[in-house]
């Protein structure tokens, strides 16, 4: 993890999935192994099995989803809620439970037309989970950078 990421971690509890750099050697975990003579041993190791390609691949898929959502938001096809939802690695049903909103309502809020009419209170519910301010949630221009 870069230092930049560490600073961000302090004020937000959510991992920045968009810019995450996975350091494959940083985290060690107990790993069991059978020796030639049939005895078992365990040791702390950071590379086991096919770890690297799998972890990288899983994050690639997440990042790809975020990128697609971001493009759509900038084009004005969907509301920023969809982008932040992908950024928090959430799907509709989980987000619905966190915000206490019905699924159909949440899907409706992803339309730009409906999103513009939402009141502060509803927006705040979303913003609280995404750990951003309401202004940030409304403002899509800063995503262009």
């Amino acid at each position, binding site marked *: 993890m870069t230092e930049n990421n560490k600073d961000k971690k302090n004020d937000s509890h959510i991992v920045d999935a968009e810019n995450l750099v996975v350091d494959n050697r940083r985290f060690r975990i107990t790993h069991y192994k059978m020796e030639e003579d049939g005895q078992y041993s365990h040791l*702390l190791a950071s590379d086991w*099995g096919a770890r690297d390609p*799998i972890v990288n691949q899983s994050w690639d898929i997440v990042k790809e989803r975020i990128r697609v959502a971001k493009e759509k938001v900038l084009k004005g096809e969907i509301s920023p809620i969809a982008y932040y939802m992908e950024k928090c690695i959430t799907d509709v049903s989980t987000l619905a*439970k966190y915000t206490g909103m019905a699924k159909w309502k949440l899907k409706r809020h992803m339309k730009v037309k409906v999103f513009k009419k939402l009141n502060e209170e509803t927006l705040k519910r979303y913003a609280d989970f995404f750990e951003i301010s309401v202004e940030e949630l409304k403002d899509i221009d800063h995503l262009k950078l």
Partner: protein
Amino acid sequence: MKLNFDHMQLSAHCESGATVNLLGYYKINIDEPMVFGIGAGYYFGHLPFLKMNFSPATTFRALPGRVFSRTCHALGVEFERNTYRNVQKGMDELDRVLDKGIPVGLQVGVFHLPFFPAEYRMHYNMHNMVVYGKENNEYFVADSVVEGENKISYKDMMRVRYPKGAFATNGRMYYITKVPDQIDLKGPTIKGIKKTCHEMLDVPFWMVGVKGIRFFARQLRGWPEKKGNKIASQYLMQAILSLEEIGTGGAGYRFIYGAFLNEAADLLQIEELKELSVEMGKAGDRWRNFSYQGARNCKNRSEPEFSYDLLADIILDCADREEQIFRKLKKIKF
């Protein structure tokens, strides 16, 4: 207040690790493979109707909470296990038990867990850890997967204990109330082995046990045709993720179980168990083979390097090996 918790052991499986650490506080010396075997954590299930990360769920472990409760029942240890709907009540109860000087095991979600490695912080609500003290609104946590001494603030604790989504924990906590004077491991070991045999061979449902492995192979064979190469590689990745990733100790708990059989052979003085532990290790190697070759398929997603038929054949081979192992285990007269 902070309890003396310097016996903490690191382990591969979070729940077995939490159980080991809790039992260790009461001077019961038992290691991770033993707990995993007695608690019958070994399992297989491929459940296409349950989606994780937009892919069908494959599980190599029993439901969360089973290992702890089964181990304690088998050893004759009395425990208390509760969930609390009311957040404040749950937190007060945790403080109350900690004040009495009892370490508490918690089931938490990892998405908000600050000390957890960033690459694993997804919406996964089946992590287990032990809390052993509170000072200045900060809790001391012994997490058997993460190295070092960890602290977590009151606010964060509230969050990780009450995540939402699949398998939401509702603030589940468990602690030991009474420990017997003498612990005999022989009986529980036999019981654990029998339980695992039953779950792998005799459950009449096609998605779990050895049947489940064969079902998984059949499903895998159909993925590229039904879903296209891109989705198929995503599904495959999710399966390998739960096979190899954090908490399994390698090859979907097969190596841990092998280590358990090896220990059981010494404990019960049965030579055949030793042979079976070697067999189990070989089955684990085969699973690992599958994960290595599958991972190559995930790398270049548009064109698979190995055909899915080949991968399915490896899994069928695993199923045959495991069926043989458990049939033999079942026949042993203890």
